[in-house]
C-alpha cells in the first residue's frame, strides 16, 4: 500500500531497460522499474548488485550504455549531473562527499546553487540583487539545517563533525537543492542504532513533505521499517520488487541473500 495519498498517474522515475557496461563487465543488465511519486523506495541487493551504479546513472555521473531513464516523464539519461540536479534530483554519496574545509552552513548554502542565479560579475561588483539573494541563501540553508537537526553546529568546520552528523549534513545539503526526488546512497552506513532511528525518522519527514526518496541500503531493519516499496537487484539484474512484506517472504530474494551471508 502506498503511504502517500498522492494520486499520481505518472511515476516520478521510470527505468526502461537500463544497461551499464564497463568494458567487458555488465554492471546493470536491463533494469525495468517504475518509482511512484511520493513514496520511500528502497533498493537492496547483495554487494556488487549494481545499486550505486544505478544511482550514478540516474544522477548523471554515468551515461547508461543503453536504455532510458525518465524523470517526470522526460528523458534524462546521459544528462550531465548539474542539469539533473537542476531538474530536481539530488543525492548523497556512499563515502560522504562533504566539503570538509567549509563550514556546516556553507555546505548547505552550496546546495542552494541550482535555485539561485547571481553570476560572476554581479558577485564581483556586489550588486544589490546579489546581496539580497545571498541573505535568502543563508536563510534557506538555515532552515534546512533546522529540518535535519543540525542548527547548533552551523559554524563548525564540516570535517570536524562525527560521522552521524556528517551524514545528516549531506542530506541537508541535498535538501537545499529543493529536489522532487532524493537519492540516498547507504545513509545508515556506519551509524549506530540510535542514529539510524533518527535517520529513519528524518527520511519519513522528508517523504511526508513531498519529496520522493529512493535509498540504497544494507540495514534491513531500517529498510523494512520505513520503505513503501523495495526493489531487489542481483548481479545487475532485476530480481524482485514489491512491498516489504512481499519481499521478506520472497524465496528468490532469500536465496540470493543466503548465498551472501
Amino acid at each position, binding site marked *: 500500500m502506498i503511504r502517500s495519498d498522492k494520486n499520481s498517474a505518472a511515476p516520478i522515475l521510470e527505468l526502461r531497460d537500463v544497461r551499464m557496461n564497463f568494458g567487458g563487465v555488465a554492471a546493470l543488465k536491463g533494469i525495468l522499474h517504475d518509482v511512484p511519486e511520493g513514496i520511500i523506495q528502497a533498493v537492496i541487493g547483495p*554487494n556488487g548488485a549494481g545499486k550505486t551504479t544505478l544511482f550514478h546513472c540516474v544522477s548523471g555521473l554515468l551515461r547508461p550504455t543503453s536504455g532510458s531513464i525518465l524523470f517526470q516523464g522526460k528523458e534524462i539519461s546521459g544528462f550531465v549531473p*548539474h542539469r*539533473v540536479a537542476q531538474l530536481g534530483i539530488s543525492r548523497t554519496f556512499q563515502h560522504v562527499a562533504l*566539503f570538509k*574545509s567549509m563550514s556546516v552552513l556553507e555546505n548547505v548554502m552550496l546546495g542552494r546553487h541550482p535555485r539561485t542565479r547571481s553570476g560572476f560579475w554581479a558577485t*564581483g561588483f556586489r550588486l544589490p540583487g546579489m546581496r539580497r539573494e545571498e541573505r535568502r541563501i543563508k536563510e534557506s540553508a538555515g532552515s534546512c539545517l533546522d529540518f535535519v537537526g543540525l542548527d547548533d553546529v552551523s559554524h563548525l568546520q564540516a570535517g570536524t563533525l562525527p560521522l552521524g552528523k556528517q551524514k545528516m549534513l549531506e542530506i541537508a545539503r541535498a535538501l537545499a537543492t529543493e529536489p522532487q526526488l532524493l537519492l540516498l546512497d547507504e545513509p545508515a552506513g556506519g551509524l549506530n542504532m540510535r542514529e539510524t532511528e533518527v535517520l529513519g525518522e528524518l527520511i519519513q519527514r522528508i517523504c511526508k513533505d513531498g519529496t520522493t526518496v529512493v535509498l540504497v541500503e544494507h540495514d534491513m531493519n531500517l529498510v523494512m521499517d520505513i520503505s513503501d516499496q523495495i526493489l531487489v537487484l542481483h548481479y545487475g539484474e532485476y530480481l524482485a520488487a514489491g512491498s516489504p512484506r512481499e519481499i521478506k517472504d520472497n524465496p528468490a530474494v532469500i536465496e540470493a541473500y543466503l548465498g551472501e551471508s
Partner: protein
Amino acid sequence: MKKADRLIFIALICFIAIFPWVVQNISAISHYVELMVFAGIFGLVCLGLSLLMGYAGQISLAQAAFFGIGAYSSGILTAHFGWNPWLAMPVGALLAAAVAWMVGIPALRLKGHYLAMATLGFGVIVHIVFNEEVDWTGGPSGMVDIPGLSIAGWKISSELQWYYLVWGAVLLVLLFSFHILHSRVGRALRAIHEEEVAAEAMGVPTSRYKVQIFIFGAVTAAVAGSFYTHYVTFLSPSSFNLMWSIRFVLMVMVGGMQSLWGALLGAVLLTFVGNEWLQVFADFEVVVYGGILLIVALFLPQGLISLFRREPAAPPNPISHASDEG
C-alpha cells in the same frame, strides 16, 4: 568580507599610502618604490592565479602568455597604430579572454598533469609566436618607443604616480576577488576544488565555472601586462616565457595558495628576492630559485600564509575515489 580580512585590507591601504614616504628618504632603499610597482603588477597576475589555483584547484602554467598577450596588444596598438592606451588595454584584456575561452574549454576538461602540460604547451606556443612574428612584436630584439600612460591629459611619469596607479588597481581587483570568494560563486569554486563530483551533483556547472575563472585569471594577467608595457616602454619575448609562468605559480605557492593575501605576499616577496636579494647569488640565481621552489613544495605546500593561519586550510586535492560499485 570577513572581519579579519576587512582589517587587513585597511591596514594594507595604510601601508601602501605610507610606504613610499618612509622609503624615499633612505637612499639605500629608495628604489624600493620602483620594485613595488613591479610587485603590484605581478600581484595582479597572482590574484587571478590564486583564485584559479588556490580556490578552484586548477593549475595553469600559462599566465605569462596572457601577461604577454595584454602587454603586446597594448604595445602594438599604441606604438604601431597610435591608439589611446586606455582603449588598448581593454582590447588586450578581451583578446586574452577570448584566447582563454578557446583554450580553456578543451583544456579544463583535463586534470592534474594533463592540465599542467596543456597549459605549459600553450604558454610555450604563445612565446614562440611572440618570438617569430617579428613584424608585429619586434621579435627577440624587442619593441621600443611604447608611449606611457596619462590620465585626462596628465602624464604618469614618476615612480610614485605609477606606484599609486598600480596598487590602486590591485586594491580594486582584491576587493572584487573577495566579493567572489564570499559568495555563491566562491563557494562553488571551493566546492569544485574539494569534491568536484559532489559539487556537480549539487547543480554546480563545474566546467563552466572552471573556464570562467580561467578567463578571469587571463584578464587580470592581461591588464597587468598592459600596465607593464606602458611602465617599462619596452617589450621583449623573454619576459613572457615559461620561466615567468613558473615564477607566477611560485609566487602564489610561496605566499599561500588558499589566500588572496598569500598571493600578494608571494608577489611582493619574490619580486624583492628576485631583484634584490638574489643578486648576491649572481650565477647561482637559477639554482637558488629552484631550491626555494623545491623546499616550499616539499615542506610548506600551503605557503607562508599557513604560518599565520589559525584554522587548517583545505586538504590538498584528494585523489579521486574509485567509482563505487553498489
